[in-house]
């Protein structure tokens, strides 16, 4: 595989990661969200494998494998089990309507492109062009957390944000040191478990997962 082709492939995967971020925003069914999230993880792991191969960095293979294991198989499975167990209503309920969210998303992409321009100028890595995509993925994940009602969708948004950060690390510096990555992976796993417990608790307390209900927690003034 020549350098040129791997750049093309990596860019292609970056584009698909961006697409999955938008798909997460557009999806109306919770199961659909899980599938898209798994795809995003898959593209991510493929991209880091390519970077590992091209730049010849061994530990990135480990990250790639870890991503594949955690984000494509384990986390979606945990969430799937959770949704099934709690018998959650399967429609995503947006706070802001979906087309508007999309337009905001496009604006965020342009913004992050604008923001990462100086880095692109300075960096010499072949992955530098994907940094804008990584940043947009983070911002779009954040946007998803803001504009959705349900706790489960927010968890997925959070995980998508983490995907973006991971991708940013790969594209800006060819990934973080292995120790850090392992730590992050563990964190994510634990976070998912804690989220699971939280969601369960919210559900038992309020009888719903609608986060607007949390407003009731504040003191009446």
């Amino acid at each position, binding site marked *: 595989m020549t350098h040129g082709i791997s750049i093309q492939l990596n860019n292609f995967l970056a584009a698909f990661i961006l697409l999955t971020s938008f798909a997460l925003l557009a999806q109306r069914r919770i199961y659909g969200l899980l599938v898209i999230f798994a795809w995003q993880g898959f593209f991510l792991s493929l991209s880091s494998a390519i970077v590992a191969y091209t730049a010849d960095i061994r530990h990135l293979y480990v990250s790639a494998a870890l991503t594949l294991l955690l984000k494509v198989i384990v986390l979606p499975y945990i969430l799937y089990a959770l949704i099934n167990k709690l018998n959650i209503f399967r429609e995503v309920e947006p706070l802001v309507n979906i087309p508007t969210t999309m337009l905001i998303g*496009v604006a965020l992409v*342009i913004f992050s*492109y*604008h923001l990462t*321009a100086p880095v692109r100028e300075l960096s010499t890595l072949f992955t530098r062009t994907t940094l804008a995509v990584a940043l947009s993925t983070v911002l779009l994940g954040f946007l998803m957390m803001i504009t959705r009602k349900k706790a489960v969708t927010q968890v997925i948004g959070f995980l998508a944000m983490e995907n973006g950060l991971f991708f940013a690390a790969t594209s800006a510096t060819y990934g973080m040191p292995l120790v850090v990555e392992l730590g992050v992976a563990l964190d994510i796993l634990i976070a998912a478990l804690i989220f699971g417990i939280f969601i369960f608790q919210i559900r038992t307390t309020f009888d719903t997962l609608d986060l607007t209900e949390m407003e009731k927690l504040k003191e009446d003034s």
Partner: protein
Amino acid sequence: MSAPALTTLGVSHTEIILTSVCALLLCGFLAPFFHNREKFFTSLFFPVIALASFVSFAASFLAVGSGLTENYLISAGLPGLPFHVRLDPLSGFFITVVSLLSFFVSIYSVGYVKTFIGRQPISVIAVFYPLFIAGMIMTLLANDAFFFLMGWEVMAISSYFLVLYEDRNPKNRRAALLYVVMAHVGALSILLSFAVMAGLGGVGQETFQGYTFDAMRSASHTPFWAGVAFLLAFVGFGAKAGVVPLHVWLPEAHPAAPSNVSALMSGAMLKTAVYGILRVTFDILHVSQLWWGELVLIVGLLSAIMGVLYAIVENDLKRLLAYSSVENIGIILVGMGLAMIFYFFHMPLLSALAVTAALYHALNHAMFKGLLFMGAGSVLHATNERNMENMGGLIHKMKWTSAIFLAGALSISALPPFNGFVSEWLTFQAFLMSPSLTSQRLNLLIPLGAALLALTAVLSASAFVKAFGVSFLGQARSKHCAEAHESPWSMRIGMLLPAVVCLLLGVFPSSVINWMSSTSSLLVGETIAKSASGFGWAWLTPVAAQRASYSAPMLLLGIISVLVIVFITLHARKNAIHRVPPWDCGYGGLTPRMQYNSTSFAMPSRLIFGFFFRLKETVKTDLFHKRSPAFPGKMKYSLRVRDRFWGLLYMPVIDAVFRMGKLTAKLQHGRIHIYLAYSFATVIILLLMVL
């Protein structure tokens, strides 16, 4: 193209145009003396105006074609500041537009104004109509601030009286008031802008020489003051052009005026504002900052989209046309904004492309909007109806008007082979060249603007499918529309000519671009005339044949030949045609009321773009039918669409003015001594200040 300039015959173009202006002014002043024999007078009077307009058109057309510039001095006016007159390709272009439309409208007016005889005294129209045209041409000819503003005011005041013409309707009085207020806010802003530019010139402030455009042109402007001057001029001219959010007067005033005047106001008067923006930004201030272009582009896009959305939901034919003018001014501004951006980045050829698109659209809009307003006037004349909900089926009674209106609708919907498409296509080409800009931010954002313009183009087609479909097609929705009649010949000719021009402008774009090449050279120092016809006269290739090409003659020829061949082949074999009632699902008894009407046609757009409107929709149901309680009884639906900007921008200002008024009212006592005391205090304060 180098047209044989009249100068070879020893005649100055400027003098010819000025002569026709004088003729128009004279017509206005003589008109009151003829109020006894109105019918005879109308048949004589409007042809004279048409002739004057035509002379002015011919002179300016030739002047633009040969690209000459003439300066002229009239020793009248203020002491030390004679009227400076200048005919250059820019003013010549707009004089051509204005006087060509005036020519058509004046022919139309012969028949149209006669319909007022016996209902209204026509002397008001007879006085102010020629003054209005003269004012526009004077504005365009002016080469100093005073003469410009004089022409501007003649134009504004005379059009105010024309809007007020049917003053028995209180709505029209309100529209005229709103119009005159907005016109003067705009004029004030323009005056300030001129003052800033003149002040910066710094030459001959004692002798008023700073107020000539020549002095302003050569003055060196600091970026800040140049920005201030631009902003003031943009607000002032924008108010006249009706850009969002300064557009509120337009949908009130244009429909209120008699239709021939609406045609002139929409087709010609708005163009003088476009001219003003071009003159100030390109010719005088030389587009020194990037944000000017960005601002013009954004405002243009906003006007285009808002204008067309309001046009779609409108039920009044003339108001629909007025809102569509807002849209078209937006498209012109988009072209200008792009031209300014390209100019700033030193890309003269692309800037020439964009500015040609804008100028071309200005010319086109004058033709088809004039035509459409005249068409609406014919409908009004035949049915006394502006509300489309009561129209329908007019195509059977008004064959000419409907065919001509359809031509106008095709032009304005940017469909080939008519002219609207050429200018929109050029604008899109300018958009498509934006990736060659060196600014990354603009690279990403400008394509979104192009998408917005595309949305506008089809929405406007949608609005005109509605306008034509609801008013001319289908079955008559009211009795007076079923009994409509065709307009007199003069009106038909007045409409037919611009329709032909629309088609010609659409089919021979490269000749038109050739003709206006001197204007674009004056503005941006470059022209696309050479590259546009580089592939042969029949092809329009704005930058290069490799880049994009369009050939209206080929398309037209192709479509017509297919049409003819198919028609002949199919008619070789005679199949009978039986007239039958339309399909009624077997229930029987279709009534005209069951047709889709204007409100229902616009319903999807209202729903999707509901955010942009202030909608008030109510459905009242009498719960049960009297005899059979299983069915609901009478239902009543009412819908009110309001302009969002009115509440957002204007109501606060109006409220503030009233509050100020109440405050100042406290100074009023009605006692003469108090007033004298005020004067006394003022004198004392002034004396102190002098000290």
